[in-house]
């Protein structure tokens, strides 16, 4: 049955037009997908960590503990949200709210398949970079407002880190954009129909993955919440659902970073036999698995080494890569 034949929907449809209708349904889907996805990723993380460490991970709730993170979410919702006495109350309250905004907004432009994209923007990549920078702001707000020295150190580290790593991130993205000549997500994917960009741009891809790991504050770049130094960094003072929101934002950012990498380097929805969405989600989750795998293998860098790594290794290499790409494209 065609949806538009129902009278009420027909009215709304006629009034708002097909475009906005798609936006509303898409946003609702995103709002459903974001928490479930992060719950699933928490479970994946714990499972992978467990099996790497030769233990089973969560096993109690549901088959192989798959419902564990949902139960955890229920527990977190029941917990009291403590605001420290000397904290800046408003900023302390706003920070976890703002941190989820980029997590939701960025999904709007991600092309899961040729048809499954909420909104096609011709500056899609720019939008994602712009909004994901907000998370740095909210981390700073949360850390500052907590009025805790550990939180403050964590927040300051977060800002320095996100500034440093955004440069090689953008530079490595730049070389792909030069190749595909567009900022539109779907066109970038379409440009790699026979051969993935990864084949032409392996260096940029590796730099991109390293930088997204750093941008999302994952180990070995998790200095923001380095638990052996800073207890838990910027969210030391957060409890209950506010803490969970930070977690949700982190895991969603991880997924967004992986999907970006899939779009830019790993051929988006292209793949044999199955539909586009299957391949896209599979590739994204594989990349998420790689970040989880990295986290449970390596030690953490020290802060000055982290900065050195960004400025002395990643930025020169990505600049060089960009230069070579530009020359090659010009010459060919």
């Amino acid at each position, binding site marked *: 049955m065609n949806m538009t034949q129902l009278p009420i929907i027909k009215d709304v449809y006629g009034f708002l037009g097909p475009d906005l209708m798609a936006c509303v349904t898409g946003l609702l889907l995103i709002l459903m997908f974001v928490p479930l996805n992060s719950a699933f990723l928490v479970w994946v993380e714990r499972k992978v*960590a467990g099996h*790497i*460490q*030769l*233990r089973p991970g969560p096993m109690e709730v549901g088959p192989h503990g798959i419902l564990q993170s949902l139960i955890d979410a229920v527990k977190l919702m029941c917990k009291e949200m403590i605001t420290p006495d000397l904290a800046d109350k408003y900023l302390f309250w706003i920070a976890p709210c703002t941190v989820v905004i980029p997590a939701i907004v960025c999904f709007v432009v991600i092309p899961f398949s040729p048809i499954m994209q909420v909104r096609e923007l011709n500056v899609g990549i720019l939008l994602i970079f712009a909004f994901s920078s907000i998370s740095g702001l909210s981390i700073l707000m949360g850390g500052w407002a907590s009025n805790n*020295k*550990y939180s403050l*150190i964590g927040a300051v580290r977060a800002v320095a880190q996100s500034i440093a790593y955004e440069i090689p991130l953008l530079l490595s993205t730049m070389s792909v954009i030069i190749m595909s000549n567009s900022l539109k997500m779907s066109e970038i994917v379409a440009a790699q129909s026979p051969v993935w960009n990864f084949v032409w741009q392996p260096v940029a891809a590796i730099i991109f993955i390293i930088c997204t790991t750093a941008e999302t504050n994952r*180990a*070995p770049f*998790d*200095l923001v919440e*380095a*638990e*052996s*130094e*800073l*207890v838990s960094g910027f969210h030391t003072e957060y409890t209950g659902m506010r803490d969970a929101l930070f977690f949700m934002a982190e895991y969603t950012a991880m997924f967004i970073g992986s999907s970006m990498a899939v779009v830019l380097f790993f051929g988006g929805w292209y793949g044999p036999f199955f539909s586009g969405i299957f391949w896209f989600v599979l590739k994204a989750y594989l990349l998420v698995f790689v970040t989880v795998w990295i986290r*449970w*293998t*390596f*030690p*953490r*860098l*020290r*802060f*000055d*080494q982290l900065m050195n790594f960004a400025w002395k290794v990643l930025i020169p290499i990505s600049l060089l890569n960009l230069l070579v790409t530009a020359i090659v494209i010009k010459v060919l």
Partner: protein
Amino acid sequence: MLTIKTIDDININERLYQLNLGPQHPSTHGVLHFLLTLDGEVVVKAEMLIGYTHRGHEKMAENRIYEQFYPNTARMDYLSGMIFNTGYCETVEKLCGIEVPKRAQYVRVITSELNRVASHLLGIMDFVMGIGAYTPFLYGWDDREQILDLLETISGSRLTYNYSRFGGVRVDVDQAFCDGARRFVDRLRGRFKLYKDLITDNIIFIKRTIGVGVISKDVALDYGVTGPTLRGSGVKYDVRKNEPYSSYQDFKFEIPTKEEGDCMARYLVRMAEMEQSLNIIEQALDNLPEGPVRADVPRFITPPAGDCYHSFESARGAVGYYIVSDGTRIPYRIKVRAPSFSNLFVMNKILPGHFVADLVAIFGSIDVTVPEIDR
């Protein structure tokens, strides 16, 4: 007009702030309190506040007979309880002039070395976890678990063994234990490659540890540092070689030393020491003499009046028991020289100028146990 301030014009005290690292903090194993004065993230001054787990073992000793003080010794350093127990027994035996059967001495060596390996594994893995790698930590615990299982089969306990007794050991070892120990030696030898791949060669680990927390030879000697920390600074001192006790003179083993004195050197010394311990265990198992495991000692010991100092090597350094006896069943005074106490104090000297993140690494590489410091 813009006046440019030089570094000297800035009042440094305005920029400093204090940070309480501990007493409850994930990386101060146990309850240790660092009061740090920081400039940004760089430590300017560090002060260690200890005593949160002070239980008054030395006072307790003055109110109980020699046998009753025995379980306390393992509670001081819970990670090398076997060594502490054995050392206490040896001190009292020295004081009373009790001759311990050869087999008991060998069994003590085997169990002590197993305990040392367990303690080193935990120390190294805690250090690595402080740097941020969580997985090697659990691999190390997997190996350590084998030792604990092994020691449980003879002593019946996993941490506070209470296995040695005055004049020998409580239970004789059986064939199953010897086989298990041999299996463990083979297993751990095979695992060193894993640790090399995962930790020693890792570029992040190398960058985090080389040149960090350098304890020079002179500083180490002045501050009374002992154990792997001292050997990491290039001093060849091991009580097992210098003053052999409990038949350590019968075994061939090396004292690994490193000249650098940084975190990496201490880590490598511990790794090499584990290999040497495995050698000792193997030799002791090969030459395990027959005979009784316990000398004939009275039920309650009454040492002659006098005093006695006995030094032995725990996993953290040279421990000393100084016992003053007044000829009764109750010791007049027992003083424990805790190696961690001196090893920790040296951090006062070397911390300034390092990052907070380095503090965790240095603290992990020195490997102290807080209950031993606090006693």
